[in-house]
């Protein structure tokens, strides 16, 4: 086993918690049962590393196989690192009938044309996602497996999720993706987060929606239960309206665990009590960041309890509606896709 393989294995053992390490090794299926039994997982990580190194040497595994192990781990635990989303635009006619084998071949060939010495591994997950692991090298050096880029793409959708991409490799990856998926362009979708499952569910709208209806509630019950007869909510209708509007804006039930929303403001300062600041012509640049373990839940709660006014302002409701969490807000801009009109002060 060469140096890079050893280093990658060491790095991996350090990164993966022991319990998950055992399951990941089982899924990997490159070690025999006897070898797996040989590794004692109750020991310290250093000991485990040494034992694994010995076992992998026996099997003569190379860096490609260790890369496979890393990929299995990342596929099983995708909610780490920072994922960014891109959207493919202008599909050509045969984009919709693209199938996996064709995509794989095209992607590998395009990427190798653009850059020599890249190690690409493509794997199809059970839920229709195509996972791609790319280790970048160049004409003079071997692929660097320690800093691999991961790409997740759902075939026939225009969305691509990328993690661990350096800016110098970005144009190459994007070009390879665009060509191999038979589209004409790709743009930044302005959605990023730590949890891949959350941003994927948000973008593909995999949560319970509430559709606006003209007659929201069924006929009122005539016989209320005994305990409630003496308790009456005076403003029940207003409260129910708020709940309904909050649900329409954000959805019902469990919402995808998006963790931050960033608004970059390039608007003029507006405050009637502060003359000096309001006089300035140039816009006041500032960035507002919301973060929470589950931002959509928090916003929905704000709307339904009246902290945020209902109907929910488009500034907030665009997060689930447009599936983005990075916005640039300017004063009264014409309706361009990344800008919105200034509403409140």
């Amino acid at each position, binding site marked *: 086993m060469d140096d890079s393989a050893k280093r990658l294995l060491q790095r991996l053992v350090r990164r993966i918690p022991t319990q998950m390490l055992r399951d990941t090794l089982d899924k990997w299926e490159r070690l025999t049962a006897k070898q797996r039994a040989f590794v004692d997982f109750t020991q310290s990580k250093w000991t485990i590393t040494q034992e694994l190194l010995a076992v992998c040497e026996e099997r003569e595994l190379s860096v490609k196989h260790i890369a496979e192990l890393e990929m299995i781990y990342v596929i099983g635990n995708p909610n780490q690192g920072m994922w960014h989303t891109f959207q493919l635009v202008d599909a050509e006619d045969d984009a919709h009938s693209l199938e996996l084998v064709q995509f794989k071949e095209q992607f590998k060939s395009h990427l190798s044309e653009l850059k020599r010495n890249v190690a690409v591994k493509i794997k199809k997950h059970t839920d229709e996602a195509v996972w791609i692991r790319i280790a970048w090298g160049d004409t003079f050096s071997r692929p660097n497996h320690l800093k691999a880029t991961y790409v997740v793409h759902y075939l026939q959708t225009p969305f691509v999720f990328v993690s661990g991409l350096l800016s110098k490799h970005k144009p190459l990856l994007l070009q390879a993706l665009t060509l191999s998926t038979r589209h004409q362009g790709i743009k930044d979708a302005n959605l990023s987060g730590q949890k891949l499952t959350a941003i994927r569910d948000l973008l593909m709208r995999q949560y319970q929606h509430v559709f606006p209806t003209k007659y929201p509630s069924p006929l009122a019950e005539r016989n209320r239960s005994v*305990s409630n007869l*003496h*308790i*009456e*909510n*005076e*403003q029940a209708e*207003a*409260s129910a309206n708020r709940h309904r509007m909050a649900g329409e804006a954000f959805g019902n039930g469990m919402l995808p665990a998006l963790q931050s929303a960033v608004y970059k403001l390039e608007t003029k300062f507006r405050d009637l009590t502060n003359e000096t600041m309001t006089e300035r012509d140039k816009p006041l640049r500032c960035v507002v960041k919301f973060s929470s373990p589950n931002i959509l839940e928090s916003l929905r709660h704000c709307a339904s309890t009246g*902290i945020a006014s209902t109907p929910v302002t488009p500034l907030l409701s665009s997060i689930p509606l447009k599936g983005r969490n990075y916005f640039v807000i300017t004063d009264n801009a014409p309706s361009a896709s990344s800008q919105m009109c200034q509403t409140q002060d």
Partner: protein
Amino acid sequence: MSLLNPFNKRPGLNTATILLVENEEQFQQSLANVLVEETAVTVNVRLAKTLPLPMKNDESRPRIDLVVFIINLTLDKSVKSAKASLKYLDPGYFLGKVCFMVTNARQALGCTGRLDAVRQLAVSLHCPVLFAEDQTPEGVTSSARRLLTILKVASGLVPNTTALYLSNLTRCAMPPDIDQPSFD
């Protein structure tokens, strides 16, 4: 103006009605569940977020004997909303038929300003301030019991006592200034 009036409706027989006004709409629900369990008197509970109350409920609404403003001291909006709702009460209520119930006084260590503001408000209106603990069932039960005591008097169900007499005993007093020396 749609002022809530304490004396423009006839009282019910052996009935008392209490109105709980709370911006957060949390504590009022658990309080209401305990209040209706009272057996000696029929207790009606009306819940609201702010005043004024919607006009369309006016006819079906019984005479309200006691208005309780529930204020969460950790939230500024709670205090502001209660203050804004006070305007919609007929002055007749301030003769012992209004009460302030304050929660989270222990957590509000940095917010003594709010507690003082609520106290001053209560002093100027001659109303009592009750401190309540809303997280445990025992806290909810004890607050409900105290409210029931005041409610029974305010609805005239306790002989020889009126709300005005009781308010003289329960009204909030501003604590003396700490800077001022006690004997001079």
